[in-house]
């Protein structure tokens, strides 16, 4: 009797997953045709790859924040590890692998591996902490990664690959190339990231996260999020599953970083700072924690929005801040929320518990 009023989770969830894949594919087809028929302005076309990268970041962070319920304030750090390792790989492979798409794919895989390793190292201390303490430590790690990359030098010459910290002491032989130049980052990058590659990465990220969520690991992530003590009491290995979610998320962020970086000719570590981490967090929160489609849409809208607000020039970031605050108030204040639900009869039906 009352059961009919209860939400059938399985059906709602399956519908949401197919809807997400469907919308992403549709959006890709539309953008691709618009871009090839020159309907898209060149500034919009230039944003397609970054949008894809941010979408992957949103999916990746959602795995930590939405699915596992841990706050991370340093996700841009993984993106930058991926960006630097990916671009360096692509540069090293330039001669050996002239075919750009394969080079891009390998660069993204290497980026994912490096970022996953960083995630693992950071996870060891971080995952022992809880709540706000975990958040501040992820913030700290984000800043540490930025500091280190800002002081990191890597070059290649006939003698192999050379590294140094703080100052350039790589002493490259003649004909060698300094790839990572401390605060100058990497320049002279071949722009091999493409919109189709970005689309494929988004689809892969979605597949990984959706399939993981609907497996024993995903159930464990969510069980730990919902009630840590109960999860321990049924024998779930908290550390193992938190680490799994964190490392997977870091790997996806790394791949996204590589995709992002190879859309520009220069990349510096300061691009991936605290504000970028927050931006990604905003995608997740505005899209709804655990809601992949929401996060993806938020990533797209919030990447395009500042561009579209360009006509307001100076007021642009101010408007952005106001929109952010108003959105948070509108979605989280009970009175305002009730008011909005009353306006929307369709939504009201779905939210009955």
């Amino acid at each position: 009797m009352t059961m009919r009023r209860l939400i059938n989770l399985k059906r709602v969830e399956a519908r949401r997953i197919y809807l997400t894949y469907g919308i992403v594919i549709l959006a890709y087809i539309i953008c691709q045709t618009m871009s090839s028929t020159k309907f898209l302005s060149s500034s919009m076309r230039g944003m397609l790859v970054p949008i894809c990268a941010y979408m992957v970041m949103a999916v990746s962070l959602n795995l930590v924040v939405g699915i596992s319920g841990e706050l991370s304030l340093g996700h841009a750090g993984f993106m930058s590890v991926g960006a630097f390792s990916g671009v360096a790989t692509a540069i090293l492979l330039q001669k050996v692998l002239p075919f750009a798409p394969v080079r891009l794919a390998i660069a993204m895989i290497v980026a994912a591996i490096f970022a996953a390793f960083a995630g693992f190292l950071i996870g060891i201390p971080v995952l022992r902490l809880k709540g706000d303490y975990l958040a501040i430590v992820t913030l700290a790690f984000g800043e540490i990664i930025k500091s280190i990359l800002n002081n990191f030098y890597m070059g290649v010459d006939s003698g192999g690959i050379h590294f140094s910290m703080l100052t350039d002491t790589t002493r490259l032989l003649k004909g060698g190339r300094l790839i990572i130049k401390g605060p100058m980052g990497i320049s002279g990058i071949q722009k091999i990231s493409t919109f189709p590659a970005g689309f494929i990465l988004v689809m892969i990220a979605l597949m990984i996260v959706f399939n993981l969520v609907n497996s024993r690991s995903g159930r464990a992530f969510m069980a730990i999020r919902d009630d840590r003590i109960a999860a321990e009491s049924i024998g779930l290995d908290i550390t193992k599953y938190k680490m799994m979610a964190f490392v997977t998320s870091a790997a996806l962020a790394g791949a996204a970083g590589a995709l992002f970086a190879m859309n520009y000719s220069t990349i510096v570590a300061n691009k991936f700072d605290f504000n970028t981490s927050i931006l990604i967090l905003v995608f997740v929160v505005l899209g709804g924690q655990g809601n992949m489609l929401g996060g993806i849409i938020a990533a797209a809208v919030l990447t395009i929005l500042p561009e579209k607000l360009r006509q307001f020039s100076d007021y642009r970031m101010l408007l952005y801040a106001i929109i952010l605050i108003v959105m948070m108030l509108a979605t989280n204040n009970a009175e305002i929320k009730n008011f909005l639900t009353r306006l929307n009869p369709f939504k009201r039906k779905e939210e009955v518990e």
Partner: protein
Amino acid sequence: MIFLNFFISGISLGSIYAIIALGYTMVYGIAKMLNFAHGDVIMVGAYVCFYAISRYGLNPFVGVALAMAACTLLGIIVERLAYKPLRQAPSLAVLITAIGMSYFLQNTALLLWSSNPKVFPSIIGRGSFKLFEGALSVSHVTALTIATCLIIMVVLSLFISKTKLGKAMRACSEDKGAAQLMGINVNATISLTFAIGSGLAAIAGALLCSAYPTLMPTTGSLPGIKAFTAAVFGGIGSIPGAFLGGIMLGVIEIFAKAYISSQLSDAVVFGVLIVVLLVKPSGLLGKQTQEKV
């Protein structure tokens, strides 16, 4: 002697962090939120002080008082408009709102005062005390900063432990529901906490810019994050913890700059934070709570 010089600069920088960290920790203790906009209140305070002194030629201490008044008001308004409606909301939503507020303050400052750096006039001149026949030189700003921090520490501790309002604040941070039942006006107490924290931020802004005179709309960000780190370091929610954390962070930062590398000093500071939290997961003076099952 060089070592002692570094140590004193460390304590001085740490005093500024401590004053800022107080705002974070008091607000966290009572509202359980990370107020990321706190760093930008410092910047607003510094601008008000700057204009009062440089444009209107007021006495520096009148300038600081004006800045405190402005920031106190700002703190109360921000809390009422942005945070109060979210008392029941998930903490992540509050965090994002605070970050939105931080962007808002920075960009408003950008529109009002432009991005051109202003050279902040020291509120106490650029002189210094010479000790040990000139071997040790302590600038007036350094001395004033350390003294101010000590005074604030004593006054605030007395306020919290002895006065009725201070006790109300402690009661609210223990249990808001119970405090309400005991007749404490919870909303007013939270406003008071924001007011005190923001007033202190104005002092910190004036001291910070007296020591490091470049004033820009983003001036508050990094000290804000560092002070936040200091608050966590000492145990967020704990007032003595904020002092201890602030001072230690300042000293570590100056030593890291001097003896390790100035580019990596931030990394060292954050690294120490991580190590401390691993050994003491709730900070140096934070209390560990056992969840009732």
